[in-house]
């Protein structure tokens, strides 16, 4: 059963969940929990708020399961819900700007050896730079890197045009490359 779930597409799992198969949801959730959580987390400086938003996104998915059309792709639909939730959060003024502070930098999971301290430093710098991006640029970057969405899908999620997404991504990468000078080795 678990193996068959692994080979099943997101869309089929979602369809099965709509018809009452809760195991399908479990499998679906297991696939997207990490990337979605990180996507939300990168958009918020407050860890507790990120958890709250992340949970709320899944609750919306659960509530909106009947609205999901089997013909549509699940992942863009999921991230659109997350994106809208984050936009709502920002518009509510609860968090005006991501503060580029040491606390805002996501700590790395494990201690790295001294040999790779440079890499760790580069990673931390990347997240600082990421937090300093504008929300649209950051969203476009995160949707591409974290969710693995195509430009078309990013445009669909963010409700913008293809060229706009391309432009945002280009600007984001330019700023990140500039900030990550010396990390090429």
């Amino acid at each position, binding site marked *: 059963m678990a193996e068959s779930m692994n080979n099943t597409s997101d869309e089929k799992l979602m369809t099965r*969940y709509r*018809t*009452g*198969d*809760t195991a399908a*949801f*479990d499998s679906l*959730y297991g696939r997207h*929990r*990490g990337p979605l*959580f*990180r996507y939300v*987390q990168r958009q918020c400086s407050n860890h507790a708020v990120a*958890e709250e938003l*992340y*949970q709320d996104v*899944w*609750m919306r998915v*659960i*509530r909106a*399961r009947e609205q999901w059309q089997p013909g549509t792709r699940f992942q863009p639909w999921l991230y659109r819900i997350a994106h809208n939730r984050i936009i709502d959060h920002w518009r509510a003024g609860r968090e005006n700007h991501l503060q580029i502070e040491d606390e805002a930098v*996501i700590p*790395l*999971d494990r201690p790295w050896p001294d040999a790779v301290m440079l*890499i760790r430093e*580069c*990673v*931390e710098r*990347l*997240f600082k730079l*990421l937090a300093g991006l504008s929300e649209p640029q950051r969203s476009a970057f995160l949707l*591409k*890197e*974290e969710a693995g969405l*195509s*430009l078309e899908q990013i445009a669909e999620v963010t409700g913008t045009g293809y060229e706009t997404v*391309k432009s945002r*991504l*280009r600007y984001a*990468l330019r700023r*990140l*490359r500039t900030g*990550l000078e010396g*990390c*090429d080795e």
Partner: protein
Amino acid sequence: MSDNHDLHDKQISRLYKLGSKTEPPHHIDAEITHAAHAAIPGQRRRFIRPSLATAAVLVLSISLVFKVLDQEPLEKSVMDSLPTDQSDSIAQPAESELDTHVLVKTKEKVTAPAAVMPDADTTRAGKPLPQPQRSAPKKYQTTRPEQKPKPPAAFKQDDSLGKTQTQMLSAPIKEEGTKLQKKSRMQLGYGKRLLRQKRKSMAPAVTASSILERFDCKTIQLPDSNSAAEWHHHYKTAMEQGQEQYANCLKQTYLERFGKALPEHLNE
């Protein structure tokens, strides 16, 4: 596709993936999955749907069985109770199936003839016939205490007795009853057959007066003698024994045979 490739920076992606190991806390995972399971009562539905269908089929089957059984035993009970105690078999189904209004009406029609049923038993036993017109009002009174029974005097007259009994028998058929009454009567199975039997059992009591009126004087045994005293003796004895019709026949035959009336009093 080429745009995707152009906008992909391997170095940045590698650095990003190295730092992207965080995952949601387990308690949030548990809350979300719990909410997802609770939102879909699909598993319960799957159990409920067949059980509902099964229950519906069971209810229909049981009601059908009851309906069939409801008809058969009643008919059987009526048939079985006919030779023994017909009053019970008639009254019980009426009470169980009809409401009070219908029950009263049914009893009004049914119990009167039913009250005569014991007479048939006593007749078979060789006992003298009790007055059927008295037992019927008694039963009638017990079932409908709010209504006063008709005075027995009305039953003493032969004509009125005949009419009343006939009405009581024919009323269930002629009178407009509710559909429920008709249906219950049909279900009980005592319709025509039972009424016919009741008429049969009541026939001697009901038609006794009419028989007296149409007494066939040719069938009675007349005195062989031409003596007026003997004829008078027979006449007097018949009157004393209450055989008025016989006495009348004697008078009538005496008049026809001897051309003069039988003297009611002889100078002895």
